[in-house]
C-alpha cells in the first residue's frame, strides 16, 4: 500500500516539476507547482508528519501559490520569450547539475545500507509531539519568525506601493 501510494504521488511530483519547466506560460507553471506541493503534502503524511502535511497545503499550496497566481494575473504576464542572453549556463550550469545529481544519488544509495526503510506502521509525529518541542525548546526562534514575517509584510507593502504617493 505504502509503495503504491509513494509511486503515485512521487510520479505526480515529478510530472508537475517537469511540466513546470516545459510550459511557456507562467500561469501553467504556477498550476503545476501547486500539483507538486499538494503531492508533497501526501508524501509528508506517508512519512508520519501530519502537521507538516496540513501546513504544506495551507502555507504553500494555499497562501504562497495564490500569491503567485495573483501576481501573474495582476501583471498579465504573457508567454515567455525564448531569448538566450547567457551561454554560461550551458557550459557550466548543466554539467554542474549532472555532477550534483550523480554525487547525491551515489551518497544516498551508499547510505541506504545503514537505514531501515519506511513503513506505514511506524509511529507518526502527532501535532502534540511537535508543539511540545516547538514551544518548550524552540520558543525563541518561533517568536523571531513572527517578527520576521511582520518585517516581510511591511517590506512587501513598502516595495509594491506606487511611487509618488505618500
Amino acid at each position, binding site marked *: 500500500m505504502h509503495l503504491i501510494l509513494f509511486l503515485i504521488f512521487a510520479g505526480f511530483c515529478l510530472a508537475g516539476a517537469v511540466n513546470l519547466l516545459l510550459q511557456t506560460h507562467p500561469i501553467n507553471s504556477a498550476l503545476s507547482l501547486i500539483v507538486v506541493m499538494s503531492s508533497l503534502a501526501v508524501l509528508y503524511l506517508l512519512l508520519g508528519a501530519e*502537521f507538516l502535511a496540513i501546513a504544506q497545503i495551507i502555507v504553500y499550496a494555499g497562501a504562497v501559490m495564490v500569491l503567485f497566481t495573483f501576481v501573474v494575473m495582476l501583471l498579465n504576464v504573457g508567454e515567455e520569450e525564448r531569448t538566450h*542572453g547567457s551561454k554560461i549556463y550551458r557550459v557550466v550550469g548543466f554539467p554542474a547539475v549532472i555532477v550534483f545529481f550523480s554525487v547525491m544519488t551515489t551518497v544516498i544509495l551508499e547510505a541506504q545500507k545503514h*537505514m531501515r526503510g*519506511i513503513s506505514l506502521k511506524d509511529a507518526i509525529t502527532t501535532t502534540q509531539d511537535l508543539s511540545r518541542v516547538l514551544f518548550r525548546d524552540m520558543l525563541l526562534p518561533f517568536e523571531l*519568525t513572527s517578527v520576521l514575517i511582520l518585517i516581510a509584510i511591511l517590506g*512587501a507593502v513598502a516595495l509594491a506601493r506606487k511611487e509618488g504617493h505618500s
Partner: protein
Amino acid sequence: MHFDVVPDSWYLILSALLFTLGVVGFLIKRSLITVFMSIELMLNAVNLSFVTFAHEWHAVKGQIFVFFVMMVAAAEAAVGLAIIIAIFRARATLNVDQIDLMKL
C-alpha cells in the same frame, strides 16, 4: 520486495531529483516569475529530505526545521513578489535577460 516498506533512499532520490529540476528551471527559464517558482521548488525538495531524515531518526526537531523553512519561504515569497511587481512597474518586462543591470 515487501509492499509496505519503501527504502529511505527513494524519498531522498526523489528529493534530489526535484532539487535538480529546480536548478534546471532556474537556469533555462527566462521569465522572472518562473525563475522564482523554481526557487520554491528547490526549497520544497530540501524540505522533503528533512522530513525523511526526521522520520528515520525519530527527530522531531527535523520537522520543526521544515516548519521554519516554510515560514521563511512564505516571507521570502511575499517580498520577492513585491520586488517583481516593482520591477514590472519600472521596466514593463519580466525577461531576466533585460533585467541585467547588476550583471558583470
